[in-house]
């Protein structure tokens, strides 16, 4: 475990600069995820249909999605690229190389989550033909096209379809227009729920930071103006996972450097996240950090820590002067 960390430090030292908060969090948060890999394991047997998916499949799906994005933003051959690849491979193995998704789809053919989680693997080139055959049929129905769901989730479905190579079941700009963020709402109407809506709209719209240029310029300007205010209040309210998501949004914004005050707000945010991180690299979902709280368990930490690893990687790449679009060339 200590070897890659040392190697990374050497790289930092050779750059001649002090390591940024974002860089440090990107490393230590991913370290935490690696140390807790076993906690992402699905329950033994055939868990998927009976177990509460929010406690089993959701963490695994997030692990796949975010490690894929981390890998896409890392230099091949780097320690980060290697770690992210290993975790992504682990997650794929947990799904029995996609076999799990076939079972899920047969059990719940009109549920959208099997496709949404599968799409993260598919984007990474990990595919299961049997799943896709059934998915194509289900996805061709008028019923699928009209599944009633939150507008930001619809945008996520469209991105999933795109990743898997299915014909889109709707128009992305129409879907965007129906979201909270798409309406450029008064920024003071922001609260926690709206925060999750808007960050996910950005993630789906830009394929989790891989294609930042897909963000309409008007939206970029709007976000650059208001993210600092939202981030500040989420940090004060000790909403660490949402703060991490907003930091990811800030890192995805094209031309972020040109917006007044955004860089300072981001720097403050990363300093705060680094401060809340425990010795093992974990970040709680909400609440005060050390020394006010007892030991943090996996379910209370995994989401914030994964999000922080993802957001900090995007920020680190940004700080290093590599535009995400350049990284994207490396994505299949």
């Amino acid at each position, binding site marked *: 475990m200590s070897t890659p960390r040392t190697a990374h430090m050497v790289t930092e030292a050779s750059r001649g600069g002090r390591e940024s908060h974002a860089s440090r969090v990107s490393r230590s948060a991913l370290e935490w995820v690696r140390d807790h890999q076993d906690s992402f394991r699905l329950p033994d047997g055939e868990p998927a249909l009976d177990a509460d998916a929010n406690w089993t499949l959701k963490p695994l799906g997030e692990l796949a999605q975010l490690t894929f994005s981390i890998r896409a933003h890392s230099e091949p051959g780097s320690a980060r690229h290697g770690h992210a690849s290993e975790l992504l491979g682990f997650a794929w193995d947990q799904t029995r190389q996609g076999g799990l998704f076939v079972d899920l789809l047969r059990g719940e053919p009109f549920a959208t989550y099997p496709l949404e989680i599968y799409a993260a693997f598919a984007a990474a080139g990990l595919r299961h033909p049997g799943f896709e055959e059934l998915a194509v049929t289900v996805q061709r129905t008028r019923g699928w096209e009209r599944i009633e769901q939150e507008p930001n989730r619809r945008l996520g479905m469209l991105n999933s379809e795109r990743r898997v190579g299915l014909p889109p079941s709707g128009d992305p700009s129409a879907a965007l227009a129906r979201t909270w963020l798409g309406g450029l709402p008064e920024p003071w109407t922001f*609260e*926690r*729920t709206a925060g999750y809506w808007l960050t996910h709209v950005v993630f789906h719209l830009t394929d989790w930071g891989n294609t930042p240029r897909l963000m309409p310029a008007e939206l970029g300007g709007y976000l650059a103006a208001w993210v600092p205010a939202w981030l500040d*209040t989420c940090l*004060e*309210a000790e909403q660490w996972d949402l703060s991490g998501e907003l930091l990811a949004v800030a890192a995805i914004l094209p031309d972020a450097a040109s917006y007044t005050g955004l860089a300072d707000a981001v720097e403050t945010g990363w300093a705060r996240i680094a401060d809340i991180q425990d010795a093992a690299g974990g970040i709680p979902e909400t609440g005060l950090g050390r020394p006010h709280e007892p030991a943090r368990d996996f379910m209370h930490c995994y989401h914030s820590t994964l999000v922080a690893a993802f957001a900090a990687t995007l920020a680190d790449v940004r700080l290093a002067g590599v535009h995400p679009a350049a990284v994207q060339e490396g994505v299949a």
Partner: protein
Amino acid sequence: MATETNAREITRDLDVEMDAFLSPSEAEGTYRDSRECAALLLIGGAGGLLLSPPTPRPKKG
């Protein structure tokens, strides 16, 4: 002028408090987010939509 003098004496004490009035520190933030109220819309464990129309009964005769 007596009034002026008197005022100065009283306001000497007020001065200290005056500065507190004129440069108050920031109020503590109060965060309250909307609650979801999904119970009316979701089936929960009961197996049926609470807001769905009543099941039609077969007509007699």
